[in-house]
């Protein structure tokens, strides 16, 4: 036990002294999350810049303007020149221009139809469709009030989510899964390096057992995984108000299981590699498809159906899904037991193969 603790402390000390490792293990996932989180956080609470040109200047048009200005997703700026606003629209500074034409009040008073013109940029399809449908809704309401028609049918919104799932809620468990992937897969490189540089040979000249050498490496990685996950979750909750809804116990259980699975996969894929230079590309080859096909950054549903068998074959899919279910109670991809079972199977198979084929010298 004394030997094991010494080995573990040595690894931790060396990690702490290695600035590059420190950066890539702790700072990199955090930076990644900040960049992605801030870049895509506009979906919710976003407002669209709208230009408003009131050519009527009547109490009625004033009323319409007021209603428009109260719409939460619109940031309305009333201006005089239509031409100037259209230039701004084309350049992308604003998303739409609403024009209330002269004579609107007169038309309404006479019971004649009057039209409000909306200029929009069809290349901004998402924002344009939101703006147009919102405007239609508002105009309908105004019509109802003006004609005193009773409201007979109403749409009541009912979300199936117990709470609003934002992109960041989707992203954070993905970042966690990604950092587990890195931490686990690259773990075997230390051993390959120590074998290549004959450090393992020197250890082999002492009575220390290989089990202890390996166990201390694995436990060291697990400790890093816990610290790393903790930092990610803390930052996510401070900056993006992402909270862990499910049980912390289950969350860290999956983090440990996932790290173990990826450590064993990492050891298995490098059994044939003699040098770090030889092992590195193999690990990157394993890691690359998982980064993009496991639903870390965007939902698996967005991928074509023929990719699904690939997606389902990748262990990271199950880590990400399990973490997402526990943390933010996202839509489950697989039942929880299946996630755990698949990760367990990867772990058992790769550990067996790695023990069978890993060369110490």
């Amino acid at each position, binding site marked *: 036990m004394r030997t094991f603790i010494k080995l573990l402390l040595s690894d931790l000390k*060396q990690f702490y002294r290695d600035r590059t490792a420190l950066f890539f293990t702790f700072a990199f996932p955090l930076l990644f999350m900040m960049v992605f989180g801030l870049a895509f956080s506009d979906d919710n609470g976003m407002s669209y810049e709208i230009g408003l040109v009131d050519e009527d200047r009547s109490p009625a048009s004033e009323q319409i303007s007021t209603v428009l200005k109260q719409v939460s997703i619109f940031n309305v700026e009333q201006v005089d020149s239509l031409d100037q606003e259209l230039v701004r629209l084309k350049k992308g500074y604003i998303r739409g221009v609403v024009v209330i034409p002269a004579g609107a009040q007169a038309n309404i008073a006479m019971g004649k139809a009057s039209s409000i013109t909306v200029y929009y940029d069809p290349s901004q399809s998402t924002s344009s469709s939101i703006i147009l449908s919102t405007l239609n809704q508002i105009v309908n309401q105004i019509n109802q009030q003006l004609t005193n028609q009773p409201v007979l049918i109403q749409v009541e919104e009912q979300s199936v989510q117990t709470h609003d799932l934002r992109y960041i809620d989707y992203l954070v468990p993905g970042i966690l899964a990604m950092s587990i992937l890195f931490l686990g897969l690259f773990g075997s490189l230390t051993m390959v390096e120590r074998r290549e540089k004959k450090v393992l040979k020197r250890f082999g000249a*002492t009575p220390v057992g290989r089990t202890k050498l390996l166990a201390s490496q694995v436990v060291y990685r697990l400790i890093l995984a816990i610290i790393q996950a903790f930092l990610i979750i803390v930052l996510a909750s401070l900056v993006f108000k992402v909270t862990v809804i499910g049980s912390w116990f289950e969350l860290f259980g999956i983090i440990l299981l996932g790290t173990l699975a990826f450590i064993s996969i990492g050891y298995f894929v490098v059994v044939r590699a003699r040098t770090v230079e030889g092992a590195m590309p193999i690990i990157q080859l394993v890691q690359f498809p998982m980064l993009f096909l496991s639903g870390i950054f965007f939902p698996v549903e967005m991928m074509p159906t023929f990719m699904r068998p690939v997606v389902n074959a990748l262990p990271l899919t199950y880590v990400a899904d399990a973490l997402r279910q526990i943390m933010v109670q996202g839509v489950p991809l697989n039942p929880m037991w299946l996630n755990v079972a698949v990760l367990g199977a990867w772990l058992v198979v790769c550990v067996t193969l790695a023990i069978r084929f890993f060369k110490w010298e």
Partner: protein
Amino acid sequence: MTQKYANHYIAQIKNLAKCYGDVRAVDDISFQVCRGEVFGMLGPNGAGKTTTVEIIDGLRTADSGEVTVLGMDVKRVPGRIKEKIGIQLQSPSLLPLLSLEETLSLFASFYKRSLPIDYLLDILALKESRKVFVKNLSGGQQQRLSVAMALVNDPEIAFLDEPSTGLDPQARRGLWDVIEDMRRKGKTVFLTTHYMEEAERLCDRIVVVDHGKIIATGSPSELISRYFKERAIRFSVNPTPTKEILKEFPGVIEVAIDGEDVLIYSDQIPATMSAILGYAEETNLTEQLKDLHVRQATLEDVFLKLTGRKIRE
């Protein structure tokens, strides 16, 4: 084999052989190391020294042959043997971001029994650099660290593979003190070296190996007197006489001429000397004759004679 006999030898090597492809790195060698002696294995690079030591350490497996260390077969119980032996490998790289002190302390934790780290740092003059990371140590410091690591478990027998390589003269003398101190304590040291001076000074017995075979065994003085009853006479002169003239002198066995320097091996020193002086007088070269002296043959001479090569070629 009686118990007493077994105890006398701390390591026994019988018909050891190891091939790498077509190369016979170790070619059927047998020898014994006695308890409490400093045993030297001498030979040029590539002679098979390191392979032999690593098989005895249990770090490599032999193709054939038997190795017994401390009465145990190295193939069967390497773990128990490793507790009691110390191994210094040729330039192993260690954990670069651990300090010298931490490295020793880590290795000490691998053994049931270990020497105090301070003592080891002291005898190997490493106290000032105890906090230095391994990657920042100089070559000589790393070399001394690797010797310290071999001694950390206070071993019965220490295998030191070229321990003085890369050490400056002062550090080398320090290392010799450490080895002599071990002998005083009744420990055994197995040393490989290609420094003749080191082997002559330290070793009780040596084997000379070349191309994987033992070509001579004995104490340094035995080897010198066995292979060199003659001694060497050295002088420089200009112009030098021809080899043919010198070989006619009484007692001369071998002559080597290098520029103005002449080396004559002779088994009748007085007769050869007077012939040299007579020749100088006859040819009016007495004024030119410089540095005339007689010296004892060394292991270097033995090696030259046995292999026809200088040891560090």
